[in-house]
């Protein structure tokens, strides 16, 4: 039976083109010598809505009404997927990194979590607004879990590569580097205030379900 190697899965929402998350995931895959898979998740609700004749699209910039139909929606998504595919090819060439592209339809978080096997690193790039604070630290959520050390190791590596500080947070106070004892909500507020270059968190942590939508930077679940 062929050994299934742990991979790095970069889960992208089809609505947002987040190249930074893709780059981060590629760098992690290259350093960890893992294959890279880009998982593009499409929201089925949009397709349902597009099939209803009375549903119209309201333009974000000017508020104009436009017909919202399936062919148009599919064309838009095709265009985005093609763009992601081009990025992937460029990364593969540049980093000599094999990679794959997969498209699924479903709820973003659940679909991404379902796609990850044990041992896979899952990189989320669904943040709405990218927060650019120079030299924002790499955060690691450290709690009592089997992959805590792995998260810490990955966080260290990321901080070194990005040239920024490594900060740790968790429910318990631990004498490890710059450790901030805090709860989940407190940690999310901390990220908001101080910014983050990336957040590394164990997949099994309850925070794993909130980080991808609340953090304004790539989130890596290990």
């Amino acid at each position: 039976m062929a050994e299934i190697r742990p991979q790095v899965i970069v889960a992208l929402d089809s609505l947002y083109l987040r190249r930074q998350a893709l780059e981060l995931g590629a760098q992690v895959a290259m350093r960890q010598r893992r294959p890279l898979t880009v998982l593009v998740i499409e929201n089925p609700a949009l397709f349902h809505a597009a099939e209803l004749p009375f549903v119209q699209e309201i333009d974000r910039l000017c508020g104009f009404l436009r017909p919202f139909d399936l062919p148009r929606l599919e064309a838009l998504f095709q265009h985005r997927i093609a763009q992601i595919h081009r990025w992937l090819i460029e990364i593969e060439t540049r980093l000599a990194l094999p990679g794959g592209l997969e498209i699924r339809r479903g709820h973003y978080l659940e679909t991404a979590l379902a796609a990850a096997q044990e041992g896979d690193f899952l990189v989320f790039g669904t943040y709405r607004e990218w927060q650019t604070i120079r030299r924002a630290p790499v955060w690691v959520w450290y709690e009592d879990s089997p992959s805590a050390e792995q998260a810490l190791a990955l966080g260290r590596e990321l901080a070194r590569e990005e040239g920024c500080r490594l900060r740790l947070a968790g429910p318990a106070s631990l004498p490890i580097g710059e450790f901030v004892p805090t709860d989940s909500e407190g940690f999310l507020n901390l990220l908001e205030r101080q910014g983050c270059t990336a957040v590394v968190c164990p997949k099994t942590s309850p925070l794993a379900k909130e980080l991808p939508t609340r953090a304004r930077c790539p989130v890596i679940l290990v």
Partner: protein
Amino acid sequence: MPLDPLPPERLYAAIDPADLDFATTAELPDAPLVFEQLRAMQALRFGIDVDDPGFNVFVLGPTGIGKLTAVLDVIGAHAANKPVPDDWCYVHNFQDPVKPKALRLPAGRGRKLSQDLAHLIEELRTAIPAVFEGEEYRARVEELEQQAKAREANAIEELRREAQRRGIALLETPTGFAFAPLTHDGQQVMSPEVFHQLPPEVQQRIEETVEDLQQRLQKLLRQFPSWRKEAREKLRQLNREIIQYTIGPLIEGLEQQYTDLPKVLAHLDAVRQDIVEHVEDFLPQPPLPIPLPFFVSKSEERLKRYQINLLVDHSDQKKAPVIHEALPNHANLIGRIDYHAFMGTLVTDFSLIKPGALHRANGGYLILDARTVLLQPHAWETLKRTLKAGEIRIESLEKTLSLISTVPLEPSPIPLKTRVILVGDRLLYYLLDALDPEFQDLFKVAADFEEELPRKPQTLRLYAQVLATLARKEKLLPLTRDGVARLIEQGARELEDTQKLNIHLRSLTDLLKEADYQAKKNGRELITQAEVQAAIDARTFRHDRLRAKVQELIERDMLLIDTTGQRVGQINGLTVILLGSFKFGRPARITATTRLGEGEVIDIEREAELGGAIHSKGVMILSNFLASRYARIQPLSMAASLVFEQSYGPVEGDSASLAELCALISSLADLPLRQDLAVTGSVNQLGQVQPIGGVNEKIEGFFDVCQRKGLTGRQGVIIPAANVQNLMLRQDVMVAAAEGKFHVYAVRTVDEALELLLGVPAGERGEDGGFPPETINGRVEHQLGKFAELRKRFGQREEKKHG
């Protein structure tokens, strides 16, 4: 009784060196080069002291007499007691950049303000970026941004929740939003199949709800631009507050130093407001994608507007300014606005305003050469206009003459309070006075410089001191007292006046330099009379070519001049030829013919249009003399003609009218004139002989001819008695006169001249009203009587013929 010739000592007013109480000028102290000009100096001092603006001064007199030197000395001393005037600068006008404002500051504070502002800008270049790059500012900006985004997000979220409550999902699409019905459990969007299975009224209700929500979302999205505008305004307000906080203490510190200058304070306030509005100019600019050489960014250009253009800086001055502008053209007088080329266009700003001489002299004195001002295009008009207006308005000549239609800059005018001193010659002064109606309004003071001084013992020593000063100033050898004496004599010759000292500094200096050269060439350490004479001779020789030529022509009888014998109606007149600064005398044969006529005296020079007006006047005067003496009770029945033989150029002046009259009388009296005498003099209607010019050259001219042809001991020149005081003849003439080989006679009346020339008494009118018949006058009277008789006879015959 014919007159005796003048004794030799009357032919030259020598200076006895023994009357000078020094051996050499090295002993003498310095003296002001311009001295004893009481009239001019009093006028000049008055003009520079009086306060009224119309009392500018025109210093007039011949060139080279030291007018400018005197003006600079007097004004320099006067200005030392006058206060240093204010500094002037131009600053950027934030309300109207085309019209820079002028600021006035006490002397020295202009430079201080310039330095203070430059320092302020440098400090702000550091302080402002530091504030905007600081963490606190970023945090505040982010807070505002988050608030703005949260406002939008919350509004969307609120609408999403309401939609949810109404069973509708708000979805994000690739380019906006869409509303779609939810399933009953509210967890997911209803599929089309499920929707179409709903009762029509439910479908209808869902569609209406979706439409309502769409409209509300549209309305909400249309509010976002104004919310964003509010957010931007908050950010701007934040920036303004931060800037005010940053620059406030710096500018307030500056303002403390200028509390006594309200306009400076107003400007600093304007600077403060402008910095607040344009703070981005202080922030680092991104580099150009393609660097351009010499490129200055727009923000760097804009920062210049906070500096000042210090136009006039008196910080180093201790007295009122005295400015001598050597090139008083339009721009140099009132200033100019420069341009520089930028990307193919010409640009300018207040920093490129340059001051003129009037700016620099404001509060002081401005000295200009009148001729140079008049020769510069439009400079005279500019000067007058500025003086009349009492303010300096900088405007290019092209704009003044409407040659360009663009409006570059219009700097605000600067009030003017200066005294202008024009230096020029007398002709210019009187021309301006006659032809320019504004001249007397603006230049009410005339400082009239003499070119000569009376020769008195007290002025002689002072004059020697001036020569000593000149020699030292020009680094020349000192003079012995006989050298000084010779210079004084030469000056009298040049002035044609033995009673005067020549104070034409330039000609004195030139002669001194030539004498110095002669002395040094001969290895001497002092300039003596010999060197001065050598210099005079060398100069004469340099200019002498034409005179030598004329003398040669006379000697070779190419120009006919008799120096012996007698002739009726022919006389040696004397002329002077002017060649620049050199003049020489030249004898000229004058002939006269007389015949029966009706009283006309034909001046052939005038008929040939070679005679000038004064010459013609002289001929008319002598013809009226004839009429008044000989034709009081009978018609003057003669026709006469006069001509300068072998003269083919213009003739002017009346100095030959005595000679012409003598020639006429010789012809009428049929008495020959001595050809060994030459005559010069002007005659009036009463027969009085009047003085003429160039008497020395005229005498020497005839002497040279006689000498070349051979002196007989009888030759000489008849001159007006009034010209004796002008005699400074050459040494060789003096020697010949002393040896009795040449003579100079001074006459007061035409009769005295006639007796010398004709050797017959002139005669006086007797009790019968007639002249004795054997006298000159008697013979003339007799001849004219015959003419009158003949004319009467011819007249009767004509009447009978036509009767």
